[in-house]
């Protein structure tokens, strides 16, 4: 075996490329010089004056940090008995040196002299030959990366909706196909998300959650659009117009230490330790980060969203103890640099649309938020409306014996229903009052609906003054086996002169287990459901069922009752045509899968899927049709539905399709054949047909009597 020496002699070391090793073990030239600064522009003084000059300069430089003692601290080079006008200084730490650069560079020492302070490492970095190109090179703007048309799904010819299905580890997006199996837009991707998937509020983007952060997807084939680095992110939320995203991670942001990692890290040093991040969805950059307020730290269940947005994304608001912090977009600075102090505030809600306050001329309506504060020893509980940005409280009501308050804005923000749960004086039993703020009228009148029962659920019909409440009489008997919930359909009747406003009960269903309400996104149809551990049930209602005898009168009619034992969730599709109900394995493993109903409750699809987790309809943006357009569509609905029915039938199978096409052809041929005779006038028409009155007898009742 040859010795090492022999081997070395055999190998020509020059032939070996060590560049990789060199790069790996390269010693940084500026190592240790981080504490040094070079100061230029100092006075040139005779050598004799040098100690004095040094003293002056030391004093000046010490403003930024501690300069080392003696020669090691400040070195003034001397040449030809004169100081050279520049000097070197060493600070105790690199941070101090950096501070000196940022604070002292360009500052005047006296009237004549201005000092230029630079780090030695920077001088070496930028002044060595070739390290900085002499000619200006225009920075290259990366070519725009197209992700296709992000709203392509809205152009589907048959107007289908998309739905994301999440089962076991995979997520797939599908076209909802009525009775037929959903058709995949993309094949289910395994490990698409580590937690859950979500669509943005108008459906443009889809989001997946990963330990490193969030990814957004979109376009026709759901390609990746953006990455949002936020380690350990848990919760996400969006502003209503998809401009901003809010994310929360249970672990605070920590900046990585290596330069390599820092390059892709979106947060600056000021975000260190923060948990809540607001992102700009278009740029993918964080716009503001927040630390979690101390009262929210360590909570088992985090209230979410923590940041609530005004209807137009103009303001966002966080609630802190005894105050609201309202930020203006896009600067994300505190509105008027002040918190809104509200003693004891428990909860607040933005109006979901612009409020047309009486006397207001703001186009699109004003920004209004509602909040409530609880009872204290010498003050009643209060519910108030506040206008933003003026911070003017436009209406307050006082309520007492309050145990809880829930605020339900009607979606057009014309009305706010405040559900006040109150307790009797003894505090043993509960009942509810509903207070309706009419925000568009002068002085914001408040109307009151007093219930004997406690209201456990409330829901406005979209764009209407109708609402459904579920209530139960609180008499201390809490046996869950006895169905005791009442479902009531109400409508507010405009008050006639001099009379109090009336809330008319359209229908009332008693003694049910029903606990949830789902209005169709376009109103009229509603589903009330029982979602409980042991049972699941859906009731489909038409709240404007045409009365056959008097078509002007409409009534609430139960269209269908359906059972779904394992049901955990319900969701209307964005068009209000279908309702999906599912059982998720996140809750239990009974009957995991989903069912699809049409709006009248006919079961269209019943799929059992192992480890089914989630069903997410892709939201649609608001319609672009004007109300006149919608009217004309409604007028022509028969025409459209005939075509749709035919398309449906043709889709079912090829044979039917051929038959329908053949019939169309035959019908055309027949019409053509008959059109030849369209002008034919028959002479026999001369004989006038007689109008014959026929008397028809009808047996109304038949009786048989036995006469004895």
């Amino acid at each position, binding site marked *: 075996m040859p010795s090492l020496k022999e081997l070395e002699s055999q190998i020509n070391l020059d032939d070996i490329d060590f560049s990789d090793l060199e790069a790996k073990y390269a010693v940084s030239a500026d190592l240790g010089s981080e504490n040094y600064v070079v100061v230029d522009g100092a006075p040139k003084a005779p050598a004799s004056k040098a100690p004095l000059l040094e003293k002056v300069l030391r004093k000046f430089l010490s403003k930024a940090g501690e300069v080392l003692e003696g020669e090691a601290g400040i070195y003034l080079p001397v040449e030809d008995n004169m100081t050279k006008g520049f000097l070197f200084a060493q600070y105790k730490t690199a941070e101090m040196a950096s501070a000196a650069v940022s604070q002292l560079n360009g500052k005047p020492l006296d009237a004549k002299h201005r000092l230029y302070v630079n780090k030695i490492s920077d001088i070496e970095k930028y002044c060595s030959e070739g390290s900085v190109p002499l000619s200006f090179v225009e920075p290259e703007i990366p070519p725009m990366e197209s992700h296709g048309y992000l709203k392509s799904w809205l152009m589907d010819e048959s107007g289908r909706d998309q739905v994301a299905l999440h089962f076991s580890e995979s997520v797939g997006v599908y076209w909802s196909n009525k009775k037929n199996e959903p058709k995949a837009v993309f094949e289910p991707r395994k490990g698409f998300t580590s937690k859950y998937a979500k669509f943005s509020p108008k459906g443009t983007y889809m989001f997946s959650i990963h330990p490193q952060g969030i990814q957004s997807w979109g376009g026709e084939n759901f390609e990746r659009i953006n990455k949002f680095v936020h380690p350990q992110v848990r919760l996400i939320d969006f502003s209503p117009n998809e401009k901003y995203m809010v994310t929360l991670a249970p672990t605070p942001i920590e900046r990585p230490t290596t330069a390599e990692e820092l390059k892709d890290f979106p947060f600056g040093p000021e975000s260190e330790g923060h948990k809540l991040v607001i992102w700009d969805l278009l740029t993918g950059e964080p716009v503001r980060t927040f630390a979690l307020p101390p009262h929210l730290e360590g909570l088992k269940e985090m209230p979410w969203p923590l940041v609530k947005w005004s209807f137009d994304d103009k303001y966002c608001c966080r609630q802190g103890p005894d105050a609201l912090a309202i930020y203006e977009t896009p600067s994300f600075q505190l509105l008027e640099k002040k918190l809104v102090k509200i003693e004891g505030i428990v909860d607040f809600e933005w109006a979901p649309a612009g409020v047309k306050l009486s006397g207001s001329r703001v186009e699109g309506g004003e920004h209004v938020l509602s909040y409530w504060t609880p009872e204290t020893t010498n003050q009643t509980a209060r519910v108030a409306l506040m206008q933003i940005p003026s911070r003017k409280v436009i209406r307050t009501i006082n309520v007492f014996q309050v145990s809880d308050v829930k605020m339900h804005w009607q979606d057009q923000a014309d009305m706010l229903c405040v559900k006040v749960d109150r307790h009797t004086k003894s505090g043993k039993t509960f009942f509810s009052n509903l207070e309706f703020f009419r925000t568009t009228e002068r002085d914001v009148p408040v109307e009151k609906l007093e219930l004997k029962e406690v209201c456990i659920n409330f829901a406005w019909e979209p764009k209407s003054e109708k609402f459904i409440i579920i209530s139960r009489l609180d008499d201390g008997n809490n046996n869950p086996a006895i169905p005791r919930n009442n479902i009531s359909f109400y409508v507010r009747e405009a008050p006639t002169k001099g009379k109090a406003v009336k809330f008319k009960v359209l229908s009332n269903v008693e003694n049910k287990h029903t606990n949830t309400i789902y209005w169709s996104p376009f109103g009229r149809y509603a589903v009330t459901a029982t979602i409980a551990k042991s049972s699941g049930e859906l009731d489909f209602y038409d709240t404007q069922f045409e009365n056959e005898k008097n078509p002007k009168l409409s009534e609430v009619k139960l269209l269908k009752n359906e059972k779904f034992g394992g049901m955990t969730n319900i969701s209307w599709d964005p068009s209000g045509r279908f309702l999906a109900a599912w059982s998720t394995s996140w809750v239990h493993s009974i009957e995991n899968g989903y069912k699809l109903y049409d709006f009248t409750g006919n079961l269209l699809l019943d799929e059992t899927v192992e480890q089914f987790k989630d069903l997410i309809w892709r939201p649609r943006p608001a319609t672009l049709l004007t109300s006149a357009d919608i009217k004309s569509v409604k007028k*022509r609905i*028969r*025409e459209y539905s*005939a*075509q749709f*029915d*035919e398309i449906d*039938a043709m889709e079912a199978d090829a044979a039917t399709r051929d038959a*329908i096409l*053949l*019939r*169309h052809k*035959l*019908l055309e041929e*027949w019409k053509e*054949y008959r059109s*030849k*005779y369209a002008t*034919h006038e*028959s*002479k*026999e028409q001369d*004989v006038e*047909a*007689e*109008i*014959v009155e*026929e*008397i*028809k*007898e009808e047996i109304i009742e038949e009786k048989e009597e036995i006469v004895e």
Partner: protein
Amino acid sequence: MRPIKLMGHERSLTQVKFNREGDILFSVAKDSSASIWYSSNGERLGTLEGHKGTIWSIDVDSKTSLCATGSADLSTRLWNVETGECVYSWEAASPVRRVAFSPDNLRLLAVNDKVMGSKGAISVYRINYDNVYEQSNEPILVIETREDATKVTVAGWSAEGKYIIAGHEDGYVSKYDGETGAFIETVRAHGIHNEEKVVSITDIQFADEDRLYFITASKDKNATLVDVDTFKVLKVYPADAPMNTAAITPKKNFVILGGGQEARNVTTTSESQGKFEARFYHKIFMDEIGRVKGHFGPLNTVAVHPDGTGYVSGGEDGFIRVHYYDKSYYDFEFDAERTDRVMSQAQKANA
């Protein structure tokens, strides 16, 4: 659809007919009296007595003043509908199988059977309304059966009495000039759709809307729709039993076919096997839509109410069944029809 069952005949029905308004129903059977009924409740208005044999055919003029019957007793008779009086009788050399008023009521055709040495012919008589008792005994026109054709089984008038359309025993349909009786053309409407040997045409009924096309029924188990002008077979409606009668429904695009197992086999077949149902087909698409049960013998004749509100069937079993349609009948439409209707409505509305 619960029918009114009319029991007024002792033997098999041979023809039923509505008057122009549809309020009165005429029926003839193999017994020798014709019956007249109120169609709305099935009450019998009266009978026409006088024939001495089977009455094969009946027709009523559009004013419901006169009606004509053709009988196996070698006569064609004219009756006053109001009084039930026989106002005139034409003698013939052979049984009269079919009678029909021309659309202007002024002429009456009678189909003479080819039996007993008679060659068979279509005789046309002029009707004198001025004095109904005085009719000309001689026909104004006699269309003899052509040498190259088989005997005429049924015949009728096309629009304005322009043509006389005759159905033959061999499945052909012929067109003659209504004035001169000149032969114009002939088409083989039956005996070409399958292998059936008996292909005789059993019925011809015109479309109520303008009498410009008609339906034929045949023993060859088919019915066809024929255009008067071009004389081409437009549609074929296949059935699974010999067909005795067919009618075109007004208002809705349907046709009604009736027939069933041959009368002589009836005793050996059960009601369900006999195919004694009225069959509804779509006139344009030729798809069978539905059947109406009820008779326990073959259907010999059907007639549709001119308002499109019902139909009447007369069976070998001797019963007449008057049907008024249910809502489902009016609602029924094929997807293609519905689209077409809705679209044309929309076009009208937009215009």
